[in-house]
């Protein structure tokens, strides 16, 4: 039909129209734009043609036909002129209001670029009703805050693929039923890992209605029974399933899942302690597509490993602390899995190198091996490293590593990129130097708590490993200051450096500031570094995201100001027990708009003024630790309540906050985790009032002295909401001599 029109149009126009037509053909999905073009050029011809036919049929008279033809031609010319004018006006309009000509599809594409930025998308939806509609159809991920408001959201957003309920501690079956009704055709993934109170009936409606469901996270569903597992089995297309800590699920339940979810690729059964070889064996036999299997802490034996190692696509096998797997049992295994790439047998105390070799015999693609805190690494083992020459990552944390083991690794595992010798007591300079000279591709090295290492090791490492991106050497106390200078001079591709509890001074820091690509720098317990050294780092390491200055007691406001000015991408800073730091530091830090984690515990000179400054500007603040900040009071809490809407976790133990301050915090809708030990300004009534006001709280740490004064009815209400109390019995601590903590090694906060 179109081609017929083409032939009848005037010859001069033909080449142009032909190209237009071809363009339309190829760009037909852009119909809205091309449609305008089509009509503006074809319409006159179409109208003319139909008018001509009509006239001919009507008149049957040549004379009339001729006069009509002339008048129609005039009409055609006028129409043509009009259409061209209209086209020009439309083009002009585009210049004034270009956004109007963007199709819904393009607007949706622009919104796709904002997928990580929910706030901007929300602003978009407020512009006008049509934008609201576009945003409603574009959004694919939903993370509800209050479960009571979910029904409105389900109507507003009809095309959700992924629902994340981690902010909702109480999710009942009716909620799951509403979600499955709303998103039966689109839902792909749902996260219920922090929610309780749903039963197998809710799960059944999800699994059976949402046929596209491929990911389901049910970790921590400690009350889930076999009936729940049978409900999961109805999700026939399920590919990824996390069931960590589902303690009540037994072999029967897992058997149902094995039979029902044939397409499973990933399953995590960590801590599902009722499972035995039978259940796990069924998964391995029925779900042939499994790629990743986590069976940590289960009481399984080598019997289930037989079918597991026959899985054709198995890539990852995690068997942390499986006491039932031992050498004797492993001896029966003929051959390992050829496709296996990642194996983790940390804490398997009954497995030695003999058992390990039965497990990896024939696993040619093995690239990641973790033997942390286990018994497999012995001198005998050293003879067999040649079988593991393809390894890229080895973790030997806490193992009794001797020189022969390290020598063997250095000799054979030449493509090694990542090596962890954290807390290995036997590591010496001889070993580290040997390995450094041979593992030239090493990118990540962890020698935390290797107390025998001295400067010589650091010299070797920095000389040979030029591609080093991560170095962790916390508590290598024999390493002298000179070594740190070498790190800065030679390892300039470093992105992560942990020199906590090392001898380092400003000269060392000045050298480290040459590592301009640093993202994470941990220098806890370095009392000799001062503002001078810190400002070198601040000026050069502009990409810094994380900075740990725990107990760096010589740091003052000037140093922190330098960091705030020089590191705009800063997200996490720890200034705990830096007692010279005052409000001025917090004022400077308020420039770091990306700040998410702030730890200022034990800083007596900061007050509510500083905290308010941070709260006002750092809108992304989500973790705050102000324990023992004896000058932060209710005013600080009120600022947080007003501005820090993303706050998830707060520790205000020992702060002079009263009931009013605590209740103010309740307006922060995302607060989930709160520690309020020894807050002397609180009364039982105040705490009860606050607890009622918090809607999304999941975990509260309180002193046991409050337990008796909170009525049982309040306990029930909180439990009903999904909030868990953690009672602590720590006595009131007055800060003793500041060096008393040095006896504990290493430093790890809870």
């Amino acid at each position: 039909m179109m081609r017929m029109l083409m032939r009848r149009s005037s010859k001069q126009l033909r080449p142009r129209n032909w190209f237009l037509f071809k363009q339309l053909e190829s760009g037909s999905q852009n119909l809205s734009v091309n449609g305008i073009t089509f009509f503006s050029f074809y319409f006159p011809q179409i109208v003319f043609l139909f008018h001509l036919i009509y006239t001919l049929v009507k008149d049957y008279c040549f004379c009339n036909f001729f006069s009509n033809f002339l008048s129609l031609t005039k009409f055609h010319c006028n129409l043509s002129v009009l259409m061209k004018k209209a086209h020009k006006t439309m083009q002009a309009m585009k210049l004034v209001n270009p956004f109007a000509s963007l199709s819904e599809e393009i607007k949706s594409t622009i919104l796709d670029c904002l997928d990580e930025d929910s706030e901007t998308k929300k602003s978009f939806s407020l512009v006008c009703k049509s934008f609201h509609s576009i945003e409603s159809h574009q959004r694919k991920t939903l993370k509800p805050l209050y479960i009571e408001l979910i029904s409105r959201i389900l109507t507003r957003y009809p095309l959700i693929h992924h629902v994340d309920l981690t902010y909702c501690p109480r999710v009942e079956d009716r909620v799951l039923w509403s979600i499955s009704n709303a998103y039966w055709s689109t839902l792909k993934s749902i996260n219920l890992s922090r929610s309780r109170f749903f039963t197998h009936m809710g799960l059944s409606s999800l699994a059976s209605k949402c046929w596209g469901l491929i990911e389901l996270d049910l970790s921590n569903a400690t009350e889930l029974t076999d009936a729940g597992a049978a409900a999961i089995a109805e999700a026939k297309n399920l590919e990824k399933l996390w069931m960590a800590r589902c303690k009540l699920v037994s072999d029967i339940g897992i058997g149902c899942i094995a039979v029902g979810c044939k397409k499973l690729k990933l399953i995590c059964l960590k801590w599902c302690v009722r499972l035995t070889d039978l259940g796990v064996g069924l998964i391995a036999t029925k779900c042939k597509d499994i790629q990743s299997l986590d069976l940590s802490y289960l009481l399984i034996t080598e019997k289930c490993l037989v079918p597991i190692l026959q899985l054709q696509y198995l890539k990852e096998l995690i068997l942390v602390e499986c006491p039932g797997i031992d050498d004797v049992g492993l001896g029966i295994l003929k051959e390992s899995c050829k496709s296996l790439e990642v194996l983790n047998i940390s804490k398997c105390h009954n497995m030695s190198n003999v058992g390990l070799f039965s497990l990896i015999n024939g696993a040619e693609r093995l690239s990641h091996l973790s033997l942390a805190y286990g018994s497999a690494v012995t001198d005998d083992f050293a003879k067999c490293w040649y079988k593991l020459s393809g390894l890229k990552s080895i973790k030997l944390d806490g193992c009794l590593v001797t020189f022969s083991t390290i020598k063997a690794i250095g000799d054979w595992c030449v493509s090694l990129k990542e090596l962890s010798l954290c807390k290995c007591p036997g590591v010496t300079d001889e070993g580290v130097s040997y390995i450094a000279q041979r593992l030239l591709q090493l990118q990540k090295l962890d020698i935390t708590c290797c107390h025998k290492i001295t400067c010589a090791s650091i010299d070797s490492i920095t000389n040979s490993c030029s591609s080093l991106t991560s170095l962790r050497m916390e508590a290598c106390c024999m390493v002298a200051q000179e070594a740190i200078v070498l790190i800065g001079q030679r390892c300039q591709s470093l992105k992560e450096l942990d020199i906590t509890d090392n001898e380092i001074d400003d000269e060392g820091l000045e050298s480290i500031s040459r590592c301009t690509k640093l993202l994470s720098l941990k220098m806890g317990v370095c009392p000799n570094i001062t503002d001078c050294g810190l400002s070198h780092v601040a000026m050069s390491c502009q990409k810094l995201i994380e900075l740990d200055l725990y107990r760096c007691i010589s740091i003052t406001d000037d140093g922190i100001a330098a960091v705030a000015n020089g590191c705009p991408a800063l997200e996490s800073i720890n200034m705990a027990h830096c007692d010279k730091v005052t409000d001025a530091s917090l004022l400077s830090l308020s420039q770091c708009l990306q700040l998410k984690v702030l730890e200022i515990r034990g800083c007596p000179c900061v007050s509510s003024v500083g905290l308010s400054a941070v709260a006002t500007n750092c809108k992304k603040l989500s973790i705050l630790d102000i324990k023992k900040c004896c000058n932060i009071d209710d005013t600080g809490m009120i600022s947080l309540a007003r501005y820090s809407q993303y706050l998830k976790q707060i520790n205000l133990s020992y702060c002079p906050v009263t009931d009013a301050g605590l209740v103010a915090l309740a307006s922060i809708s995302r607060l989930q985790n709160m520690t309020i030990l020894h807050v002397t300004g609180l009364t039982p009534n105040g705490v009860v009032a606050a607890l009622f006001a918090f809607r999304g709280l999941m975990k509260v740490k309180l002193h046991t002295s409050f337990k008796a004064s909170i009525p049982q009815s309040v306990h029930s209400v909180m439990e009903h909401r999904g909030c868990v109390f953690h009672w602590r019995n720590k006595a009131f601590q007055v800060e003793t001599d500041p060096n008393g903590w040095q006896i504990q090694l290493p430093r790890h906060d809870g």
Partner: protein
Amino acid sequence: MSSPEEKTLILKSSDNEEFLVKESVAVQCITIKNLVEDGCDLDAIPLLNVDSKNLAWIIEFMEKYADSTSTDAEKKDFDTEFVKKPFNDVLGLILAANYLNFPALMDVMCDACANEMKLWSVEQVREKFHIQNDYTEEEEKAVRAENFWAFE
């Protein structure tokens, strides 16, 4: 018409300006690629919805991306400089990229547009796009409340 050497196409903008582009570079635009495959490349290819200003930029972009010697980092730097244009031009380029079906340019420009929008408030968006607020006061309040309280 298959010749072993590099063929040059003539692209004509809506304001009749002609641009010479190598075929291997121009076929990044799927619209042009289809035209060439259908054998319509004898004369100049008229691109009626793309004016000369946009076409010049698009050709610059295409040439950078067709160049196999430039690394990813270089391309990223080029993109960063390329998107530093007034917002109306960014939108114009998006429309042109859509018309020509040029995915690489579309991605870069949509990203630039999104990044610009991140910095604006609701009122600024309305101003920039000359959009009338058709919400009533109650409706707007309800949407704001929903946005704030109901989900992240």
